[in-house]
């Protein structure tokens, strides 16, 4: 297994409460790893340590390491904006930026000085196509992004995230606010994109996990209970708690 992200003795605290306890994991490159578990088990917290989002919340503390391509992203000299550029985030609800559809996608390209002029137009089109939104918005690129439906907004957020050319995508229950058809479209996109990106997905929907996962991490109360290839974990769980969760006991 070619690992892309690795956590070493990772602990996270909200105040004095431990939210992650000694997490040692490897996330394989260009695969979908699904983190699942009941509410409050630390799934989202784990995800937020990968793009250094946890530190945006007051009173959080981290010990241990998170390595991306072997480099500790919590080392003192690391530029946090570079880390976040590498790891695109798809949040629970889409939050389009207060600008046009075009500018939403161009925003990241502009702040990182990646594209200009005609190249920018091409890049915006390319990433909207990548997110499967181009045909629906090509005639109204200059209208407010807030005018899109929520499912379209989530795909716009995907395009916006892909535009800065990340290496991985982090999904924090990205379909939970969407209707079934929009959710299906996002899932399809993720399956298409896993050939190019490492995808880490948090979900509490078991069936979604089964549809998408190559690797599975099962968490409970801040600890990793079990992890491994999806088929193995789903069909032959080694731990009693995993088995109970898969059978819907909690």
């Amino acid at each position: 297994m070619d690992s892309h992200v690795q956590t070493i003795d990772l602990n996270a605290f909200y105040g004095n409460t431990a939210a992650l306890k000694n997490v040692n994991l490897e996330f394989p490159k260009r695969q979908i790893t699904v983190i699942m578990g009941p509410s409050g088990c630390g799934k989202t917290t784990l995800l937020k340590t990968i793009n250094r989002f946890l530190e945006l919340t007051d009173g959080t503390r981290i010990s241990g390491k998170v390595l991306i391509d072997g480099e500790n992203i919590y080392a003192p000299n690391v530029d946090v904006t570079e880390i976040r550029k590498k790891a695109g985030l798809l949040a629970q609800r889409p939050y389009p930026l207060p600008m046009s559809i075009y500018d939403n996608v161009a925003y990241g390209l502009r702040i990182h000085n990646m594209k200009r002029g005609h190249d920018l137009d091409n890049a915006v089109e390319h990433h909207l196509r990548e997110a499967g939104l181009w045909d629906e918005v090509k005639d109204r690129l200059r209208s407010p992004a807030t005018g899109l439906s929520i499912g379209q907004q989530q795909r716009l957020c995907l395009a916006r995230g892909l535009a800065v050319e990340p290496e991985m995508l982090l999904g924090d229950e990205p379909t939970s606010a969407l209707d079934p058809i929009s959710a299906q479209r996002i899932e399809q996109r993720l399956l298409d994109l896993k050939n190019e990106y490492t995808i880490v997905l948090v979900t509490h929907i078991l069936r979604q996990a089964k549809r998408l996962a190559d690797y599975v991490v099962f968490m409970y109360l801040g600890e990793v209970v079990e992890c491994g290839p999806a088929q193995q974990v789903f069909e032959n769980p080694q731990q009693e708690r995993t088995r109970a969760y898969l059978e819907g006991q909690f």
Partner: protein
Amino acid sequence: MKRRQVEEAIFKFIMVCSFLLVASSLGLILFTVIVKGLPSLNWAMLTQTPKGGYYLGKEGGILNAIVGSIYLAGGGTLLALLLGLPIALYLGVYSRKSRISDWVRLSLDVLWGVPSIVYGAFGFILMLAMGMRASLLGGIITLALLELPIMTRAMDEVIRMMPRDLEQASLALGATRMETAIHVVIRQTLPGIITAILLAFGRGIGDAASVLFTAGYTDRLPSGLLRPVASLPLAVFFQLGTPFPEVQQRAYSAALVLTFIVLIISLGSRWLSSRLSRFALK
């Protein structure tokens, strides 16, 4: 069941009463200013400076005060904005909940409650220390100090209301806090920021006490940053203080002009903010 309906009716009654109280005080003020001010409002009032025997009710107008007030309040608001917007962004984006930001908010709240005559006296002492005389610049600085707490706290409140996730959407793309503040936070909260500016401008243009010592008064049009300027609130004050009924009437028309300026600016900025908030997340 009955008791709850009576309660509901009582509260509805209280609501209607308070609405009537607010609406009728506004109506009464406008009515007084219009009835007393409109008869002596004419073109000369708006386009001429005071001329021979103006204070005896003869020729001329209050152009000096109109222009002076716009310069003073415009300059003061601009200066307050230059200081206040960065403070509000610091409080809202950089240091949301820290001991420093708590102290800054408390200080601003206290400053908000300081009477304007105290700002006037403070500005006056400051000017004496700097060897300045009553002037447009002195008035602008004093008004900026007066407006700063109102404007900053009003902007701080709207920025704090903004969903955190929107800010994080920008940070997730690798934007710095500065880029997020300028491109996302300001755009999203623009209508609120414009309201804050307007609130501050309204307080600045209507204040007499703070410009009394610091801007002075003159019958001429403003001619430089270091020369005294007239202002509408002081024009009203001086004219009302004369024993001549004609001049007192002019005070009411000056008040009417002042009210109109505030009204035009309010409507203009509402229009502007509705145009600019087209893209904002609702």
